[in-house]
């Protein structure tokens, strides 16, 4: 089976027991607050950097997945969810309580670059101040917003004012002399190349980019609040479809399903797992097809052939998904403990349709290689542009095709298996180019791997005995996980590690629901890739990140 873990894991990434970690951290630990997925160490708010750097340097926890902030009756809390890129099943949570009246906590940004945006978001939505943070501003809401919407005393009825400011050139003063001059350029929020409502504050020196700063929050739809006000059993599941809306619905639903099922201890029947795996991989194909289509659009220009070809293939896979789930885009197909209904009848027709799609896929992929990747102009624009070295990618918490295009061998489907993936024969795709071209190539090769997975699932489903087709486990009508149980669980979405943190508060709704969006972390790498490059390379780099703003802003 090709699912063998890479050598580093076989040799064993040294795993520490919670007690060893506690001994390593010594006096820094002031208490324990274990989560279902990982041991949790409570530390003082002024020792964040020290703790994180010990865990990173000495224990090998080199991946800061997400920073979750929340408010309790008597305190604020930031949780740093750490993992290892080499073995994401080894997790640890660093819990940092902060004072209720004066919530100040030390920043973790010098240790993990990715903490920059995550802490800004925590400040924006919850109101915790991070001491020593390089740029603690609001990130999702307008600068002029009053109050922190996910804190306890927030009044949703108060009026708010949003501004439409003229963006000044932040570098002009120090760059302007007789010899040189810089120009400030707004790309977005309404721009065809930003894939949605993203705003790039770009400073140019001639044709070169001096500084690019993504400005997000134009699609901040309060997803976390929506999830926190829905019941576990049915009311949350429709929302994940709308995070990453590029047809990756089932992959997102799986993120919520996995977290909630582990939280409520629900076992999913094997048959449902196979259907889930098949559906999720169809979504991945659809999502990567759109990534390819829009990337070609960005790099090649107008509504050209590649776009239409890729959309055509998307339509085919969307037809299959519609047969399966009844919807084209927002599937709402998963339920906690399984899926909502069985494969469409007649099953043979569905199988043969799926096989037809899989049969023509290699031909289409070949066609894309002829159209796009072997195109000399395309290669000139993408090879060796938008360089993202692996250590920088890790520092920013990049995952998914972005990390794998930089040679980081990290795929949760293999490394932290769920569903039916560990029973199937497929490979994790990585490329070492670290450039825009590699990221595209990873996606195109992943399409072929997904096809392999779907084919095996179809084989399995065809032969599945009729009396063993259980699509849902027995799940109580109302779920009330125990008070104060916390869990962070992630799946491999189309864009990378899509994680959900849930804190149960004893009711049938989550006390805190935090979404770890892969695009949020991936987008943060854009300045690293774009600064110093030419302006068309910025557009190519942005396209190769394949962000979707619904997931960046949530």
């Amino acid at each position, binding site marked *: 089976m090709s699912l063998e873990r890479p050598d580093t894991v076989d040799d064993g990434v040294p795993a520490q027991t919670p007690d060893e970690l506690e001994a390593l951290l010594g006096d820094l630990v002031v208490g324990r607050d274990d989560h279902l997925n990982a041991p949790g160490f409570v530390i003082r708010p002024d020792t964040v950097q020290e703790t994180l750097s010990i865990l990173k340097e000495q224990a090998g926890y080199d991946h800061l997945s997400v920073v979750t902030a929340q408010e309790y009756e008597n305190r604020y809390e930031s949780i740093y969810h750490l993992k290892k890129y080499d073995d994401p099943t080894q997790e640890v949570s660093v819990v940092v309580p902060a004072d209720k009246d004066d919530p100040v906590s030390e920043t973790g940004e010098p240790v993990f670059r990715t903490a920059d945006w995550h802490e800004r978001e925590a400040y924006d939505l919850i109101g915790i101040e991070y001491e020593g943070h390089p740029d603690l501003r609001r990130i999702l*809401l307008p600068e*002029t917003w009053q109050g922190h919407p996910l804190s306890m005393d927030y009044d949703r009825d*108060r009026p708010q004012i*949003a501004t*439409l400011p003229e963006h000044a050139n932040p570098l002009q003063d120090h760059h302007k002399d007789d010899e040189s001059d810089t120009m400030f350029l707004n790309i977005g929020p309404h721009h065809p190349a930003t894939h949605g409502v993203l705003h790039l504050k770009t400073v140019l020196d001639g044709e070169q980019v001096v500084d690019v700063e993504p400005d997000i929050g134009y699609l901040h739809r309060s997803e976390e609040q929506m999830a926190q006000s829905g019941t576990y059993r049915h009311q949350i599941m429709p929302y994940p479809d*709308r995070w990453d809306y590029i047809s990756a619905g089932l992959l997102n639903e799986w993120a919520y399903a996995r977290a909630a099922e582990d939280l409520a201890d629900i076992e999913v029947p094997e048959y449902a797992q196979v259907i889930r795996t098949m559906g999720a991989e169809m979504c991945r194909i659809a999502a990567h097809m759109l990534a390819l289509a829009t990337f070609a659009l960005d790099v090649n220009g107008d509504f050209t052939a590649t776009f*239409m070809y890729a959309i055509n293939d998307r339509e085919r896979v969307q037809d299959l998904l519609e047969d399966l789930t009844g919807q084209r885009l927002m599937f709402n197909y998963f339920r906690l403990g399984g899926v909502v209904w069985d494969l469409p009848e007649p099953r043979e027709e569905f199988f043969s349709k799926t096989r037809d799609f899989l049969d023509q896929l290699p031909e289409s992929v070949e066609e894309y290689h002829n159209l796009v990747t072997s195109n000399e102009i395309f290669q000139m624009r993408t090879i060796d542009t938008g360089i993202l070295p692996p250590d920088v990618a890790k520092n920013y918490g990049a995952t998914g095709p972005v990390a794998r295009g930089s040679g980081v061998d990290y795929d949760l489907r293999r490394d932290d298996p769920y569903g039916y993936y560990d029973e199937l024969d497929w490979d994790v795709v990585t490329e070492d180019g670290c450039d825009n071209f590699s990221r595209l190539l990873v996606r195109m090769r992943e399409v072929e791997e997904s096809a392999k997975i779907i084919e095996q699932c179809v084989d399995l489903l065809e032969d599945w005995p009729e009396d063993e087709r259980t699509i849902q486990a027995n799940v109580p009508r109302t779920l009330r996980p125990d008070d104060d149980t916390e869990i962070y669980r992630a799946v491999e979405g189309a864009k990378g590690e899509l994680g959900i943190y849930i804190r149960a508060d004893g009711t049938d709704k989550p006390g805190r629901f935090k979404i770890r969006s892969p695009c949020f972390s991936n987008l943060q790498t854009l300045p690293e890739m774009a600064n110093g490059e030419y302006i068309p390379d910025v557009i190519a780099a942005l396209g190769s990140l394949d962000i979707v703003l619904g997931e960046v802003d949530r």
Partner: protein
Amino acid sequence: MSSDQPFITDESQVVTETRDARMTGQGDRFNSRLREAFGSSPFILTKFDKFLNWCRGSSMFMLQFGIACCSIEMMHTYAVKHDLDRFGSGVPRASPRQADVMIVPGTIVSKFAPRMKRVYDQMPEPKFVVGMGSCTISGGPFQEGYNVIKGAEEVIPIDIHVPGCPPRPEALVYGVVKLQERVANGEAAPVTVKPYELEEFSDLERDELVDKLADQIDDDELVMRYNFADSP
């Protein structure tokens, strides 16, 4: 060939059906049913406004404007299989200054509403708006959100609402064709005063919030004020 000699070809060598049809004047190629309806007279008598509306409705330029989930279905509507261009309205323009129709495909949030208003203002008159999806009607599934504007109509006037979350491409095609019909018939949505206008900060009524923000925002800066308590 010398320059004063016209270019002459041997007629007998080049004979095709198309060429024959062209040489006989009004060939079958041009004999549309519309032309037949005119009969022998090549003149039509109509009101100028009516004619212009018909032209307007028959060729609409959309603004390439992606906001949220619905924009994926909007892209599918433009692309193969659904091909909105069949109805004369399928070429998206990247600049609002070249567009007649704006499809609003997604949720409008507080930070984006002023920008959308600005883009709308940049479109030349006459302009039309198709609201796509539930979010543009009421905020849709996100209506309860603290940051969500309860429908695009709070900010700009909308001619056609297409419900759905998201609407299928067929539904959007239907909505656009309905809009074209209305435009061709000279019907327009009544212009209503929207609750949320883009205005200068100094024009806002003074209250606690304005006083608090006074040192953060310049007097002539454009702002939009949201009264969430009064929102539908």
